[in-house]
């Protein structure tokens, strides 16, 4: 009785896909549709988006589908569709997102100059050229308002995170749910709330600290939740070790748990600040955007970068919109600094940190 060898399937050895023929097929499949679509756009006068959506995409699907069929048989066709759609949508969205960044950088740099960063807006009308006036007062205002808000929120948020991880309090579940609920508070409602509570009733006029107050509920959930998550990553054995050596809970926390979770807590603070530094609506309803430089948070109007952008966009003149772009670039740089700092702090430091991450 002889054993017959099973016929070798035609498309075996899928890892061997880089021979001359398959390379050629791949190159043709990926360049020809782009060529045709570009030609349609440039020479036949087809609109760019139409040629991308109605010429490039179907042709690319067909071409890569055929290539997939030639290289891998029937099973290659859905693969081809998946690859084309991924590249297409991914590229599309990256183009959009990079367009946002690029337009801010491009239009912002046109407005940027030393005096734009340092001067305030006292003598500026909407049509004043960019030679005088700037966002100096708004930068100071943003730093003051967000700084005050941070000063209030960070102890509260970190301590809430401690309560959620380090204690066995009964209401941890409830508090987690409530924090989630605060996270859903629309920012404009927070601002309107402060406006109706303190400005309409005449307790205070427009002032910077009201803006800080409106930012607190927006910042708190972020700080508390990220703190909680970073404290939770500290291995329980560390705490037990400290307690077993006879440390009281507070020393165990301050000298063992907190240092172990330091980078996470700092990240929590930075993320919280990044969350609110660009908030516009709550500040529009609570701080009056003044044109002069002021460092008094408790009395009088205080301009901030987001409200500055909003005001100068609303004015609608060419120069005022240029100013808004400049302010947007300054704001973006501030966010970028915060973001870079957060990444720098939370980067894995050693192999141990990496292992911890993997275990998660």
């Amino acid at each position, binding site marked *: 009785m002889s054993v017959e060898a099973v016929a070798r399937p035609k498309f075996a050895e899928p890892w061997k896909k880089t021979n001359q023929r398959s390379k050629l097929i791949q190159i043709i499949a990926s360049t020809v549709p782009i060529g045709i679509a570009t030609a349609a756009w440039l020479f036949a006068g087809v609109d760019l988006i139409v040629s991308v959506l109605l010429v490039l995409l179907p042709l690319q699907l067909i071409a890569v589908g055929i290539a997939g069929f030639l290289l*891998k048989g029937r099973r290659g066709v*859905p*693969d081809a569709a*998946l*690859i084309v*759609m*991924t590249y297409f*949508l*991914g590229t*599309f*969205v990256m183009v959009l*997102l990079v*367009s*946002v*960044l690029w*337009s801010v950088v491009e239009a912002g740099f046109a407005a940027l100059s030393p005096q734009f960063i340092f001067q305030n807006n006292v003598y500026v009308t909407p049509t004043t050229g960019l030679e005088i006036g700037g966002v100096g007062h708004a930068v100071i205002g943003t730093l003051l308002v967000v700084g005050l808000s941070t000063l209030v929120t960070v102890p*509260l*948020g*970190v301590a*809430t995170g*401690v*309560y959620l991880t380090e*204690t066995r*309090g009964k*209401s941890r579940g*409830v*508090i987690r749910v*409530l*924090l*989630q*609920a*605060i996270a*859903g508070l*629309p*920012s*404009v*409602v*927070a601002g*309107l709330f402060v406006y*109706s509570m303190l400005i309409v009733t005449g307790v205070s006029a427009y002032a910077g600290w009201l803006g800080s107050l409106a930012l607190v509920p927006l910042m708190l959930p972020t700080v508390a939740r990220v703190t909680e*998550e970073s404290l939770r990553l500290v291995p329980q054995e560390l705490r037990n070790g400290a307690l077993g050596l006879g440390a*009281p*809970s*507070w*020393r165990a926390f301050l000298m063992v748990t907190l240092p172990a979770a330091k980078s996470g807590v700092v990240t929590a603070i930075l993320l919280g600040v*990044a969350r609110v*530094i*660009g908030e*516009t*609506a709550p500040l*529009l309803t609570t701080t009056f955007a003044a044109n002069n430089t002021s460092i008094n948070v408790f009395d009088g109007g205080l301009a901030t970068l987001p409200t500055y*952008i*909003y005001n100068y*966009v609303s004015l609608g003149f060419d120069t005022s*919109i240029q100013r808004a772009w400049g302010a*947007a670039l300054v704001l*973006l740089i501030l966010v970028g600094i*915060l973001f870079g700092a957060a*990444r720098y702090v939370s980067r894995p430091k050693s192999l141990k940190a990496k292992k911890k991450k993997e275990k*998660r």
Partner: protein
Amino acid sequence: MAQTPIDAPVRRTLRVKPTTIEDKIFFGISTAAAYSSVVLLLLIMVFLGARALPTFEEQGIVEFVFGTGWQAANEPPQFSIGPMLWGSVLVALIGVTLAVPMAISLAYFIQFMAPKPIARATTVLVDLLAAIPSVIIGLWGLAVFSPVGAHWGQMLNDSLGFIPIFSNTAENFLRTPFIAGFVVAVMIVPIIASITREIFSQIDDDLIKASVALGANRESTFRKVILPVSASGIVGGVLLGLARALGETVAIFFVLNLIFDDFNWFRIISPEGGAIASLILSKFGEASETEISALLAAGVVLFILTLIINTIASFIVAKAQPWRNR
């Protein structure tokens, strides 16, 4: 020999309460902080409710939420947010519909297709873009995207205008729900993409290897293994994006025309729309006491809507990411 009975071991209670003063202070501070955030929320809710109550009473809840018209000058004033509420939902739906395929593609590309350096760079870029303030995206939407979007709307209307969705009542394609939805999509894509990417990265690699070893190709691995495992996490991320879209104020305010008297059910490239947050922003400046109450009532409705979505989302995400709540 009589044995003296040994006492059965007495069950001791384990002491978990802090005993020393310092510990009491430590736990006291953290508990106080935690409860103060509860107090904060309750304060907000109670005062919002109290301020909004007169409007609900005068207008009637159903009439306020689902009716049309916003006439502060009338006597008595008439406030209804029906078109605004639907407008918020419509813009958010357009945004999410556009954002989800893009975000999932981006996450799939980063996690499963891109070479490592490109994947790392794209991840950083996406995370950075998730942190961009919405006012900047609004500025981009107004100055850069609006003309382009209007042009797209014009072409859609020219070629497919007979379909009701693409009909247009004005000869103007700026400030439409489509443009607002697109801007919102650009805003929430990075958020959804970074959540989805994190969920993809947590999928057990063995699952994917097993699927490939069994002869599955890329597409069937994606459809039959990756998607089912990560589906609930992605849904949670999408709902979080939806809540962000509903609460968005300034970006939408820049690029959407608010119409109070009529529902715009589906004409997405017609310049009529609404959004509750933008309504608040546009009216609060010269509002009277009663109108502010009405605006706060609108805020309450929006808050409740986002609250529901957020709760569902956090529930789903918690289910999908068991490593988060060990």
